[in-house]
Structures are given as C-alpha cells and as structure tokens.
C-alpha cells in the first residue's frame, strides 16, 4: 500500500516535536476526521532554519509531515511557499489515492505557519 519511502519516513520520522520559541505555527485538520497536523518553524534571515511537527494521524500523515520538514529546512520563505501537497506526495514516491486528500495536508500547515510568521513579523515591525 505505502511506498518504501513512506514507510521509511513513518518508521523514522524526522523533526518530531515543537521548535522552542517558534517564529510561526500552523495547524490543519480536526480530530473528528482523524487527522491533525501542526508545524512550528524558526526563521532566520528569511530562511527556515528549523521546523518541527506534531501529528494525530495515520501513516501517510506522519510520513508527509516528516518529508515536508526535510524538504523545507534551509529553504527561504519564498521557496517554502512554493511547496505543494502534491510535491510532498511525489517526494514520498506517491501515496494511495484514498490518502491524497485527507492525510496529505502538511504543505497547508506550512502555509499557515508561514502566514503566522509573517503576521507576527508585521506586528513586530508595526510595533
């Protein structure tokens, strides 16, 4: 069912947890559907230097978050913005079709985390 890459990420998920004093946070999903993904990012010089995730979700959800954090780390905000859920799925060597639309939302969480970072930054500069 799952590709080797998915199973590898699921087995050894990278970057689990929460970055301390995060510059941005994003969460998608809800427990009733059985999928929640929460990302926290640390940004320096417009570059995501650290990213961690937590998830309540299935194998695909865990692997997607893990894969996304790997893809994102070191990227600029602009580069990170361009990453889609589809990119994550492709990087994982594909996901079962039933999983595409519920468990593959890590990029959405990232967008929210970036939004959060940007709005905080704005607040900061406004202050």
């Amino acid at each position, binding site marked *: 069912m799952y590709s080797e890459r998915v199973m590898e990420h699921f*087995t050894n998920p990278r970057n689990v947890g929460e970055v301390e004093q995060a510059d941005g946070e994003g969460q998608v999903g809800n427990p009733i559907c*059985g999928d929640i993904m929460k990302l926290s990012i640390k940004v320096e010089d417009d570059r995501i230097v650290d990213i961690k995730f937590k998830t*309540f*979700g*299935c194998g695909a959800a865990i692997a997607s978050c893990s894969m996304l954090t790997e893809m994102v780390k070191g990227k600029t905000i602009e580069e990170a913005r361009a990453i889609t859920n589809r990119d994550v799925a492709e990087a994982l060597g594909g996901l079962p079709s039933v999983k595409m639309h519920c468990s593959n939302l890590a990029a959405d969480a990232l967008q929210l985390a970036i939004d959060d970072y940007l709005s905080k930054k704005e607040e900061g500069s406004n202050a």
Partner: protein
Amino acid sequence: MNRIYLDHAATTAVRPEVLEAMLPYFTEKYGNPSSVYSLGREARRALDEARATVADLLGADEREIVFTGGGSEADNLAIKGVAFANRHKGNHIITSAVEHHAVLDTMHFLERNGFRITVLPVDSYGMVDPNQVAEALTDDTILVSIMHANNEVGTIQPIEEIGRILAEKKVYFHTDAVQTAGILPINVAELHCDLLSLSAHKFYGPKGVGALYVKRGTKIEPHIHGGAQERKRRAGTENVAGIVGLAKAFALAQGEIETSAAKLTALRDRLWDGIAARIDHVRFNGHPTQRLPNNVNVCFSFIEGEALLLNLDMHGIAASSGSACTSGSLEPSHVLVAMGVPPEIAHGSLRLTLGRENTEEEIDTVLDVLVEVVAKLRDMSPLYEETPSKPLP
C-alpha cells in the same frame, strides 16, 4: 523477529489437518459432483459428508445446509433470499446498527428496491434490546437480522431471547454467526433462528467458502441463480475442496471448543488487565461479560489507529483498528459510532483478537510493545499535550 498474530477475527491460517483433507479434491478427486460417473459420485459423497458434519454440529438437518462462497454471500443469500421470496407477505425488515457491512449494505440495496428497513440502535456496549425488536415489528415485517456476536467489539447479542420472540410472531430470523462459529457452541434450535451464516476462514478453514443454515420450510429465493446445485438454493459448481475444508475445520474447532474458550479467556484477560494497568486514557469497548472470549477492543486517546497498527507491525504484531484510515472510507467504525464513542476516540481504536496458537509470552510482549508505541505516538500527537493529566513518561 517473531510474528505475533492477533487478528483472528480478520482471518486465520488453514490448519494442516484441514489442508490435508482438502488436497485430494484439487487433484485426483477432481470430479464435478453433478456428474453421474464414479469420479463425480466420489465428489458428491465428499459433499454429502461435509454437509452432514456441518448439520450435526449446528443441530440441523443435512437438507438445511447451503454452502456458499463465503460469509458475505451467506448473509446476502439469507437476506435477499427471504426478502425476494416473501415480498408478497410484506416489505419490512429489521436489523441493528452494528451489523457487518455484508448485512447493512444488503439492507441498503433492498431499501433502494422497495423494502422498508428499520435499523435498531444499540446501547453503549453495542447490545441490541430484545424489547426494541419486539416493538419494531409490524404486520409487514418479514425478516429480522441480528448478528450473533459483533466482529469489532465482541459483544454477544441476546439471540435466544430475540429468537423466541420472533418464533412466536412467525417472523423469519437470520443471525450472522461468522464470528461465533468455531468459538461458541451453536445450536440452531436453542438460538431459535431460521437462518444462520458462517464463514470457514474465521475458524482455520479456507477463504472463499461459507455456509448458510436454512430451516426447513423457509421460503428463500436463490441468490446465485442457475444450476440445480445445493437443492436449487445456490447455483454453481461446488467448491468441493473448500467445502471439505470448511467441514473439517468446523468439526475440529467445535470439538475443542471448551478447552479453547478457557484458554482464550485467560489470554484475553491477561491482555485486558495489562493494558488497563499500564496505559491510561484508554477506553475498553464492548460488553464486559457478554463478549467473545478472544476479543479485546480498546481506544487509546490522542492517537490514530492506522499509525498504531503500522507501528505494531514494525514489531511483528498483526492487529486491526476501526480507524477510518484502515477501511478505505472517511468514517471511523460504524460500530463504535453506534455505541456512542466520539469519532476522535474511535479513530484510535485497536482490536486484538486471539487464536489457538497465541501464548502468554506473546501477550506479555504485546503489552510491552503497546506501552512503547502508544507513548511514542502520543509524544507525536498535538492533542496529547493539551490534556491536563499528562501521565508519567
């Protein structure tokens, strides 16, 4: 890595004695039971013997056993068979919210085709109330279908009581005994049922073969139409090897039922008690006493079932879950939902079903692994941190 199989409610391995009994019917004894020559008569005799064995074990007559291509087909035959054959008498059918999909989906099909279906609720243990069955009966009711024991949470339904009510009211009564055959004693007279389904692969027989008990005099339309096999109630060349395997496996299982029930109960209690003692935020599902001796169903809050299963699999442990992710649908288990389990908790359900080869050592290993895996997943869960009573690491 040793594999530990705790998913006997999903399927079981064919026992060596069963496979051995089946083998000749693939090769030397390959005749078609409908053929008049000796090779055909030999196959016919094997069928007759298998039928007599199954009938005996159920307390039925040989003519009352119809072999099918599995438990789902048996359920379909029972329900559509009675529905289509008794349409002139009424169009109302009663079932419960916790039935297997082979029953519920069949009901939905009938609903789309002019029948009226009442789906009875269950209590928080997944139990049907016989009084509600009685109250739901109308002059149009032609059939009631309530399972013997639930495949997810193991709750045993009050079949005898329901059967007695229906026998008095002369309404046909079907029970899906797929999960109890081979585990509990089954006597169709004591259960007061007119139709009863079973499936070989749940009791160490082959997949793709089942049986339906049909009480004499029950009007039933065939489900697979065609040849005159199975006294015109199920067409198609008989799966002789499979049927021989079903009978052999059923005879072995029912013969050992007392010792196996005692063994399974002891193992189950060890597992149950271990989980209760070592993991918190758990919820045990199903009836505490009216339950299958081999079933533990538990919800671990804050984690999702499929992730749990995959982690267990990494440790060589096979189990199952009512999580939406494991069913290919978006909804968690309809059984847990019907019992009032909140969906977010239902997603974290785990079903462990024991079998004849499990040992105490295996249970202890499973407990250790469970403690570790649940902790790992909770650590990963954004829901866990939010709860006040975070337990010790």
